[in-house]
């Protein structure tokens, strides 16, 4: 479903990777590994359509990325996409609606409970700790089970043990239901998947 062809990436004049080619089918988990600066984030941003590859292309269901394919993808990067002045609930509601979902407040509350955020749901995001911000950014995943492709950049960073367990449970369920997951991580978090691949970028 997700396929790359001879993908190469240049940042600041330096070539990070070249000739990258892989294909992922339903239920596939791809772990992207590599030292700092090896292009893991750049690869995810290319897959999300944010960064243009120096060469090659990304295909989703055999077609290049466009506005319609974005409906079938969730990208969560380093930045949490939370506005400091909006409450956690309002932030999650906004990001869901921006992605064309119909956000029901009671459903969002359940999603926030998944990540133990119910107590801060009505608090402006500026009062959240780093780990809580991260969890608030990830909470939309609990409502994105229908979206086939998840692209997660360092999702486990700053999370506590319980949140890591919740996230890996969500990811496992997503993969079991035929979803795809591409993630970068320095941590070895067990996620059960019908098919697991590891891509090592050398840097």
């Amino acid at each position, binding site marked *: 479903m997700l396929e790359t062809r001879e993908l190469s990436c240049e940042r600041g004049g330096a070539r990070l990777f070249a000739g990258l080619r892989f294909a992922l089918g339903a239920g596939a988990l791809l772990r992207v590994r590599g030292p700092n600066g090896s292009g893991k984030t750049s690869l995810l941003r290319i897959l*999300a*359509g*944010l*960064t*243009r590859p120096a060469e090659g292309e990304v295909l989703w269901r055999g077609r290049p990325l466009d*506005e*319609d394919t*974005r*409906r079938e*993808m969730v*990208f969560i*990067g*380093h*930045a*949490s*996409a*939370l*506005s*400091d*002045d*909006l409450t956690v609930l*309002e932030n999650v509601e*906004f*990001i869901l*609606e*921006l*992605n*064309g979902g119909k956000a029901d407040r009671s459903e969002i509350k359940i999603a926030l409970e998944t990540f133990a955020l119910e107590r801060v749901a009505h608090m*402006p995001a500026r009062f959240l700790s780093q780990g809580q911000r991260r969890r608030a950014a990830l909470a939309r995943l609990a409502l994105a089970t229908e979206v086939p492709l998840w692209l997660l950049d360092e999702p486990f960073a700053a999370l506590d043990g319980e949140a890591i367990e919740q996230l890996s449970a969500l990811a496992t369920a997503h993969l079991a239901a035929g979803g795809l997951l591409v993630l970068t991580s320095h941590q070895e978090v067990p996620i059960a998947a019908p098919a697991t691949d590891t891509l090592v970028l050398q840097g």
Partner: protein
Amino acid sequence: MAHAFLLLVRRDLRIALRRRGDVLNVLVFFLVAASLFALGVGPSPELLRAMGAGVVWVAALLAAMLSLPRMFAADLAEGTLEQMLIAPQPLGVLVAAKIASHWLLTGLPLALVAPLIGLQYQLPADALAVLLAGLLIGTPVLSVLGAAGAALTLGARGASVLLGLLLLPLYVPVLVFGAGAVLAAQSGIDAGAQLALLGAFLAVSCVVGPLAACAALKIALD
């Protein structure tokens, strides 16, 4: 599409409501800057009447410029901007929403306050009406072209200075026709032609501005 537009406008207005200082700063700057001229040139009524329109327009341009660097900067820092770029909505609609909320929060309040400053410069009632009409047509141009400028200078060092150098020349026609319309009304000539030209300028900038802003945002986040 209309839903995405309203969604973003609602969000920006809600954020502005929670940090009213940003909106007030612009208004206070406008009032103070426009009043300084009156204090500087002395209390001669003829002189004040002659320069009133120009002063209000220049102060409005500068006040609108003041708020532009923030247009996309917060969204960029939070990461909302990258989510907007990959959202399944046309980027043009989202940029239009950013422009609309910028105008609602700066251009519209400036236009509504301007007649007060006009009074300070002893402008007659019909000239005040033309001033208000001109600002209502002209300030959206500032937001539309401003969006392109803000997107182009996003993340650049010294963005606000660069923004001034980039935008003030583009704002010249708005200033000329906006102030010209009030001067025409003051000397008893129909101001319709100047207002129509302002409208034409708004129409052209509505075509060019959002396109440039979209392209610049994509480059800024690449």
